[in-house]
């Protein structure tokens, strides 16, 4: 079993690594050899959308997933996540990896068709709506409300908890390189089997990688590629 990275960050502002995070690590570890073969020896662009604390990207860098020629461009909308990503990478001695975190919405500011390996642990909790991004104003006058707002953004996924995930899945063709692959986490309330059916109708190859009951949640990770 590959070691779990150490994390240093402020959990009032950034999502704390939890069962879902660990399941993603397990899925990537399980698929290590598959990814090496699937993505080959070329330079691979790896982008974790919503990198949060930076644990998953650090895990990939540390264990050379998918290969030793990867560059890592993790994204998040939360500025504190950017800070944690850098701190977590350095705490785990990943200083020889090419890491360049970018603050953006999903992968919308990356040139299209470039991501070889996309990893997404979305805000998957069903909620009335997806929260809006905290404004600069709130950060000055909000008296701590801003911190909670960043955490809500990492958790709440609107209808069925799928609003953000669907945005990503609908943009997969634009985000992924022609031979790219995406690993996406779901909870049971996201109705992943229905999602998979809909994606298959659009000719995506979908496969369950990991599955786990975590307390009252049932989590699963699927991989999608053309």
């Amino acid at each position, binding site marked *: 079993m590959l070691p779990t990275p150490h994390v240093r960050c402020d959990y009032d502002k950034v999502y704390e690594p939890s069962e879902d995070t660990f399941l993603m690590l397990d899925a990537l570890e399980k698929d290590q050899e598959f990814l090496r073969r699937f993505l080959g020896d070329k330079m691979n*662009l790896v982008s974790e959308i919503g990198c949060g604390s930076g644990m998953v990207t650090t895990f990939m860098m540390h264990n050379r997933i998918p290969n030793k020629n990867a560059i890592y*461009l993790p994204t998040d909308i939360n500025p504190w996540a950017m800070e944690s990503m850098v701190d977590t990478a350095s705490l785990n001695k990943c200083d020889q990896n090419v890491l*360049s975190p*970018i603050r953006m919405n999903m992968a919308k500011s*990356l040139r299209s068709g470039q991501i070889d390996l996309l990893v997404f642990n979305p805000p998957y909790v069903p909620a009335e709506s997806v929260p*809006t991004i905290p404004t600069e104003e709130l950060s000055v006058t909000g008296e701590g409300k801003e911190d909670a707002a960043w955490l809500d953004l990492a958790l709440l996924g609107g209808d069925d908890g799928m609003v953000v995930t669907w945005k990503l899945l609908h943009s997969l063709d634009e985000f992924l390189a022609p031979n790219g692959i995406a690993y996406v986490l779901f909870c049971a309330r996201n109705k992943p089997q229905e999602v998979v059916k809909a994606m298959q109708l659009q000719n995506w190859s979908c496969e369950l990688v990991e599955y786990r009951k975590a307390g009252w949640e049932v989590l699963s990770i699927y991989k999608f590629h053309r």
Partner: protein
Amino acid sequence: MKFLTSNFLKCSVQACDRSNDNFPLKFNGEKCQLEQDESLEFNPEFLLRVIDRVDWAAVLSVAADLGNTGLPAGKPEFSNEELSEEDKVILADLHTLLIQTNIVEGEMSCKNCGHVYYIKNSIPNLLLPPHLA
């Protein structure tokens, strides 16, 4: 952000996707503060793959923005066999530029819509204000 990162960043404004000017972003050389991270070791095998992958016109454009006009007009090509000493020098220079060069503070803008994005503490912010998002 690394110099190499600029090879993958486009303007976030969706309407700019229809133009050919949303990539690469234009760096404001006067406002950009650069740093070399010399601790990153030179790995020729890795560099060859990076060069294979990059959009060379975009490398030239960003390098010129930042005051470096000494790059060859065409993407350097290397033989698949043993690298010559000359090849290694070219690769080492590109390692310095693409991998070791960090843009720590600065500004970049879209050549189509003119929107300015800021880089602070090595992190570029490509988020749009609510009225543009």
